[in-house]
């Protein structure tokens, strides 16, 4: 990297200037001689390019899975491209690759300027960049292979979880190193959001990744059933909060004033909504589990804090929109600001809708439907997508010292992207509402109006086609942006090391007047800010999680619920591998409409041996918790081979490989030992006889299939899957009346 040629002539030695180290000038609080240094734009550019490329890849996979929901042929006939396996690829690619790289791009640009210092270490910046890209590549390689933990938005297996931890810590060291060597005494509010993001994501990721490894790419969560569900949705909800929201609020607080050429509307509001947001967000996780088998008090807690969350969320949106007061003429002409306005509006809509969805009466209809998909995408496409596009359009020409290649393309991107969001969200809202109502509709005679689940799915296909069209529009806009920005890069030259100057801070700061106030103190100190943020998020975490872990009576046990047999464990792992949980829930809610359709509602005590829980969050197909014993083995065999043969018109892809692939039993004993180590009470005898017991059970199923004219070897995967499906939800039926 040639740094000296791009820096103005000074008396500073290049290496010290490059690292932004203080020079031998008198240390005063901003009153000393200016120090010359250079901002690292190359790392910002690299994260920017990664954002664009991964964004497009993630969106292409999104369009593919959207197509699979109305055209099963789009599953491409391969086990590596079925919806269940690549839906996590889409979510991981857009969340951690697209949004993740965009966060690092925004943080690395703004942090340097707000601290008036180059990033702490160029080496750490590079390790962070390449490490993160390798993690994404690992995700792309493992998820289609069916290597998944099945925890939503945390599907990656344990070695990748460790890599994420290491790279996240490197990011943290680089960030705090930069903050410590800064030349600006006070930390602007954007940095508070970055610090809260860092510490909370670290806590979330570590707690949600406690797994017992079985092999390099197979593990079981140490949590089971209700606990696992609470941990997962404490994580899932707060991943939205602290990965998709707080870093973007930080970037909004930096980039919006830059774009609009005026300071943020209310700095007071930014402080108030920062503390309120990080305090309240962490409590609201259980709203993902309303009417599920979690304790009533936890559900109520989730509802109350979700409603409270409107205030700090809207504080951020209002602060952003009012920053543009008196500058709306600029918005009319500047498509970058238009992206920001639509992004902030989408944020406001999603953060109002979220608490509404947390109301139990609304949730009863919306949960498990496309409504949630619409809600999520208003946030993802509008808030995260549009803010990312705006920042990219603003940053790239500045770092390349050249105007944007085409403003017409920029304008076209804005409109096609907005249309894409509308075409996506509106059909999904209609679809979700329709779906939720159809599930609940009864005839005057008191029978389900749509007893066949498939009937409700088929009604939604035209809406799913419109959604996919919306996705194509949005993707087209992103491709236009990529072309526009790469042409801009080609026309200019990257200012890899942007010269800057600022006086060093005094070595010792003597506070006077209001500088002695406690909050003024925290504004100057990154570590107390980190600790403060940590304490605030841990309070909610402890209230939400500890009682469920500590108080045994919170999960009533059921005597007839027994651990899965060895064959059923293997079948369950196939269910996890194929990503069945992406379309099928295992949670019958206590509604008449559900007990009529599926059977007895699900009880917390039925899941005590479920590592992980498989309740799911979306019903593209019917709930499966009471599927055990509902159909004969032969039905399952034919259904997995060719779903339309049993359910004409079904959009479920066929799984013919399950009929031919031999079940891998090499790890069965290790799996039982691992499950025992996390609390499943397997006897020594059960583990010792696992292989023989497995064969006996498999032969019974194989013989039953043979009696129905189906010839299949007992050692095929389909047999294990049938064993698991036939066990589902049956233990409770063994209770004597």
């Amino acid at each position, binding site marked *: 990297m040639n740094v000296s040629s791009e820096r103005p002539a000074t008396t500073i030695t290049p290496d010290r200037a490059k690292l932004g180290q203080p020079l031998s000038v008198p240390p005063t609080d901003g009153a000393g001689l200016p120090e010359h240094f250079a901002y690292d734009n190359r790392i910002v550019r690299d994260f920017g390019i990664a954002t664009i490329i991964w964004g497009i890849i993630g969106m292409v996979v999104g369009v593919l899975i959207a197509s699979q929901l109305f055209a099963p042929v789009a599953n491409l006939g391969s086990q590596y491209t079925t919806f269940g396996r690549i839906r996590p690829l889409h979510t991981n690619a857009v969340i951690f690759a697209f949004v993740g790289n965009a966060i690092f791009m925004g943080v690395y640009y703004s942090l340097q300027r*707000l601290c*008036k210092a180059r990033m702490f270490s160029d080496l750490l910046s590079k390790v962070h960049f390449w490490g993160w890209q390798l993690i994404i590549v690992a995700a792309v390689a493992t998820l289609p292979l069916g290597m998944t933990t099945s925890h939503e938005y945390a599907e990656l297996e344990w070695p990748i979880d460790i890599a994420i931890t290491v790279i996240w810590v490197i990011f943290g060291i680089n960030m705090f190193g930069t903050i410590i060597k800064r030349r600006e005494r006070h930390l602007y509010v954007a940095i508070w959001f970055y610090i809260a993001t860092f510490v909370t994501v670290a806590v979330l990721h570590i707690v949600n990744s406690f797994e017992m490894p079985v092999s390099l790419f197979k593990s079981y969560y140490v949590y089971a059933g209700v606990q696992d569900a609470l941990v997962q949705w404490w994580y899932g909800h707060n991943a939205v909060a602290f990965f998709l929201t707080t870093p973007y609020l930080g970037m909004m607080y930096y980039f919006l004033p830059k774009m609009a050429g005026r*300071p943020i509307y209310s*700095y007071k509001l930014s*402080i108030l909504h920062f503390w309120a947001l990080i*305090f309240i967000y962490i409590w609201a996780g259980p709203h993902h589990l309303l009417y599920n088998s979690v304790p009533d008090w936890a559900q109520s807690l989730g509802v109350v804090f979700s409603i409270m969350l409107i205030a700090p969320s809207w504080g951020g949106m209002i602060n952003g929109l009012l920053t543009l007061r008196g500058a709306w003429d600029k918005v009319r002409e500047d498509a970058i600001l238009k992206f920001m306005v639509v992004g902030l509006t989408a944020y406001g809509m999603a953060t109002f809708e979220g608490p509404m969805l947390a109301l139990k009466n609304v949730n009863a209809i919306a949960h498990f439907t496309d409504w949630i998909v619409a809600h999520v995408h208003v946030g993802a496409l509008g808030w995260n997508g549009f803010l990312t596009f705006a920042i990219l359009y603003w940053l790239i020409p500045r770092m390349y010292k050249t105007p944007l290649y085409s403003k017409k393309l920029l304008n076209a991107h804005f409109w096609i992207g907005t249309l894409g969001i509308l075409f996506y969200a509106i059909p999904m809202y209609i679809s979700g509402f329709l779906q939720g109502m159809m599930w609940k509709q009864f005839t005057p005679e008191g029978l389900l109006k749509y007893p066949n689940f498939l009937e409700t799915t088929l009604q939604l296909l035209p809406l799913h086609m419109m959604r996919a069209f919306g996705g194509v529009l949005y993707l087209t806009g992103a491709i236009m942006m990529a072309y526009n920005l790469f042409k801009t890069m080609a026309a200019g030259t990257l200012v890899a090391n942007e010269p800057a100057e600022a006086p060093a801070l005094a070595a010792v700061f003597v506070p006077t007047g209001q500088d002695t106030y406690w909050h003024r103190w925290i504004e100057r100190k990154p570590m107390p800010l980190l600790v403060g943020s940590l304490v605030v998020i841990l309070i909610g975490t402890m209230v939400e999680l500890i*009682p469920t872990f500590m*108080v045994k*009576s919170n999960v*009533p046990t059921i005597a007839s619920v027994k651990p899965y047999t060895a064959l059923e464990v293997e079948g369950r792992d196939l269910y996890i591998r194929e990503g069945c949980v992406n379309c099928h829930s295992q949670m019958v809610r206590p509604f008449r409409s559900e007990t009529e359709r599926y059977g007895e509602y699900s009880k917390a005590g039925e899941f005590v041996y479920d590592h992980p829980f498989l309740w799911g969050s979306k019903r593209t197909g019917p709930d499966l918790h009471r599927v055990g014993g509902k159909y004969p083995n032969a039905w399952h065999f034919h259904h997995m081979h060719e779903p339309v043969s049993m359910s004409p018109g079904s959009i479920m892809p066929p799984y013919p490989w399950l009929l031919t692939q031999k079940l891998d039993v090499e790890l069965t004993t290790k799996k039982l030992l691992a499950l025992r180590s996390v609390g499943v009470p397997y006897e020594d005898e059960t583990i010792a006889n696992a292989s023989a017991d497995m064969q006996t059970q498999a032969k019974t199923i194989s013989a039953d299939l043979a009696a129905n004219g189906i010839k299949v070897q007992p050692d095929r995967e389909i047999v294990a899957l049938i064993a698991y499906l036939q066990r589902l939800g049956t233990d409770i039926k063994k209770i004597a009346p």
Partner: protein
Amino acid sequence: MFKQFISKIPGADTYMATSFVIFAAFFALVSLYLIFADKKHLQHLSQLPLEDE
């Protein structure tokens, strides 16, 4: 049958009420700080992103 939804757990009321009080107190503290904060200082802070223009 067995109890499915627990409406109360021992000590939970105090546990959650305490947390809520902590939040309310903290919120009040930040609000008070903001009411009495030096406007010039806040103005300086809000200008930070625009300083390198």
